[in-house]
């Protein structure tokens, strides 16, 4: 549901005392997507106590100053304000909130057609694919040197029904090496902030002095500072819908490897719904991974699912050191503009957005999906991901991109 439709469903008249109306208004704002906390509402009430509430402009300014947080929400706020507080007066600040309101009702009949044109839906439900695969045994099988055939070329011949490419057997050692080098790449960044450390290039004078006091002022024990090494946070969004069934194995193993060998990672599996998984769940035999995935459903709604992340997991996304990695084929069945909107928000809150798309190398797939095309300007790096070799290519691309970014800025 778009913001406007949400607003319509709970529109109420201001009633009773001013305080309760203000609180209702802030609830309306919250449900429409502008995050308003109770502290904000309290501040609004306090502020209204010191102004002349009969002045409409002043009233609106006051509510806006206390309840609003971001300039891009201004248009929606203006709309909701006039509809809630003065419904009969035509809206003076008509900054049309076009993105959310009007296009939502646009038809979506093309979506299904183009999806079928690209590929057939794999009839094997995804949980069956994975139940054959025993993760715990996989990781213990160090001796299993089933090499990684480059099936990207050979499998194109037997494209009878499915147009997808079989990633083939995956060598656990190679996966481990790959993830290790990715980890090293990401964790190499230095910030300008200094932290104290056992060894470094700068003296930490404060600690030196403190320690010297017990020796009568002779600095015998030295303390050092060095530039802090940033460990960025990684968020993985893995598409586990039906259309991704044949790549599921590769991608989930990649995800597990990342969780295991790398840095601070959060993993979300999504299809129709979105679910967070931990390393234990991916590793543990007793945990029924298939059931978790079945919980996600079979279809794909990328934009709506990602926007749920903002609501529930917003602490993960503050600070701009997060790198978002989306592993999906981009075939979205959600609302029209939701993916573009959500990607815009994601871009603001993360450092990089990397999209790994297994279908990228296929001839038929040329970003025909409106949604994927809409998301393209927000993606920093779009990489094919249908077998391990492609994933290896990710590393030089990342390094190349970093070099370009640092030369531009």
């Amino acid at each position, binding site marked *: 549901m778009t913001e406007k439709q949400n607003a319509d469903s709970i529109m109420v008249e201001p009633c009773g005392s001013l305080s309760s109306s203000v609180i209702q208004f802030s609830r309306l704002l919250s449900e429409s997507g502008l995050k308003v906390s109770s502290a904000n509402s309290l501040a609004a009430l306090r502020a209204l106590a010191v102004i002349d509430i009969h002045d409409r402009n002043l009233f609106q*300014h006051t509510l806006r100053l206390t309840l609003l947080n971001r300039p891009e929400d201004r248009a929606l706020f203006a709309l909701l304000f006039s509809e809630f507080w003065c419904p009969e007066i035509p809206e003076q600040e008509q900054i049309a909130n076009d993105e959310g309101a009007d296009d939502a009702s646009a038809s979506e009949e093309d979506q299904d057609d183009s999806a079928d044109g690209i590929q057939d839906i794999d009839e094997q439900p995804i949980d069956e694919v994975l139940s054959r695969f025993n993760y715990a045994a996989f990781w213990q099988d160090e001796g299993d040197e089933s090499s990684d055939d480059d099936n990207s070329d050979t499998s194109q011949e037997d494209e009878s029904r499915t147009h997808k490419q079989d990633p083939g057997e995956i060598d656990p050692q190679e996966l481990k090496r790959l993830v290790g080098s990715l980890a090293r790449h990401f964790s190499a960044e230095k910030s300008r902030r200094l932290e104290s450390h056992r060894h470094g290039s700068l003296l930490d004078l*404060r600690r030196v002095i403190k320690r010297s006091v017990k020796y009568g002022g002779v600095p015998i024990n030295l303390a050092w500072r060095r530039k802090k090494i940033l460990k960025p946070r990684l968020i993985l969004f893995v598409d586990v819908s039906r259309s991704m069934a044949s790549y599921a194995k590769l991608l989930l193993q990649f995800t597990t490897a990342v969780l295991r060998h790398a840095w601070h990672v959060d993993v979300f599996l999504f299809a129709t719904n979105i679910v967070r998984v931990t390393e234990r769940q991916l590793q543990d035999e007793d945990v029924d991974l298939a059931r978790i995935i079945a919980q996600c459903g079979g279809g794909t709604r990328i934009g709506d699912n990602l926007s749920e992340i903002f609501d529930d997991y917003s602490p993960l996304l503050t600070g701009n050191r997060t790198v978002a990695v989306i592993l999906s084929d981009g075939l979205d069945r959600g609302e029209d503009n939701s993916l573009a909107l959500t990607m815009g928000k994601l871009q603001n809150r993360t450092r990089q957005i990397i999209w790994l798309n297994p279908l990228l190398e296929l001839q038929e797939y040329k970003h025909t999906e409106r949604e994927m095309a809409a998301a393209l300007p927000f993606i920093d790096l779009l990489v094919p991901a249908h077998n391990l070799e492609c994933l290896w290519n990710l590393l030089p691309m990342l390094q190349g991109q970093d070099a370009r970014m640092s030369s531009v800025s």
Partner: protein
Amino acid sequence: MAEIVETIEDVDALIKAGGYVSEDEITTAIYLALKLHRPLLVEGFAGVGKTEIAKVLAAALDTELIRLQCYEGLDTSSALYEWNYAKQILAIRLQEMKASDVDTLEAEIFDEKYLLERPLLKALRCAKSPVLLIDEVDRADEEFEAFLLETLAEYQVTIPEIGTVQATHPPFVVLTSNRVRELGEALRRRCLYLWIDYPSVEKELAIVRQHLPNIDVQFAKQICQFVEKLRDMDLDKRPGVAETLDWARALQALHADHLDESIVRRTIGCLAKTRRDTNKLIPEISGLIGNA
């Protein structure tokens, strides 16, 4: 401080007296920030007058303006306080000769006279509530934001060697941000949020006339209209109000009284700040003047 500003009209009068051309929203924001004693977060593009608000406020309230300029890697030693190490080492050396015990030595070393006050501590210890301007807070990193949040909540800090310092006259805090990076939710919620957009032609005209009283009204209007059209162009750095004022002053210094292609070309450095912008702008000049 609250006694001076009883009503919004008071605030309006004070700000106008300080030479700031304000709008209803800005005046309301300042009034509420003073009355409720909440920090004010001002966001907007470069050059729209965010820092000016703090300066005008300080002048209006007849109090000190304490400025903390943020940058990446700013930490407590540069923002809050630092010990004067060189002086401390000298003192230690001198104390050595007296052969005193450790406690006396420590008490001597960690004394007020060796404490270097940085802006935040200074703001907390002021005798009269100052205006604390934390400029470009989006350039600092998350750790600094968390530290700020803590300080702004209680207006007190703890210096391990001395003790807790509580502000007797809490400062009025104004934070500015250029939106280079998105600030954390907690900080946003703690403050009143004010977004300042580029001004309309009328407002910009008023600002130009305020700063340059001798300028011809028609000429000033031409200047403002030109700049407004410039902002619609796709430039690397869009000109703000500061650039408009610079340009107006430059044109006045060159004794110009109307815009034509040659004079705009000569003074283009006031408006276009990169090579690409200059190259983009030069062919458009006559078009921009012509439509004014």
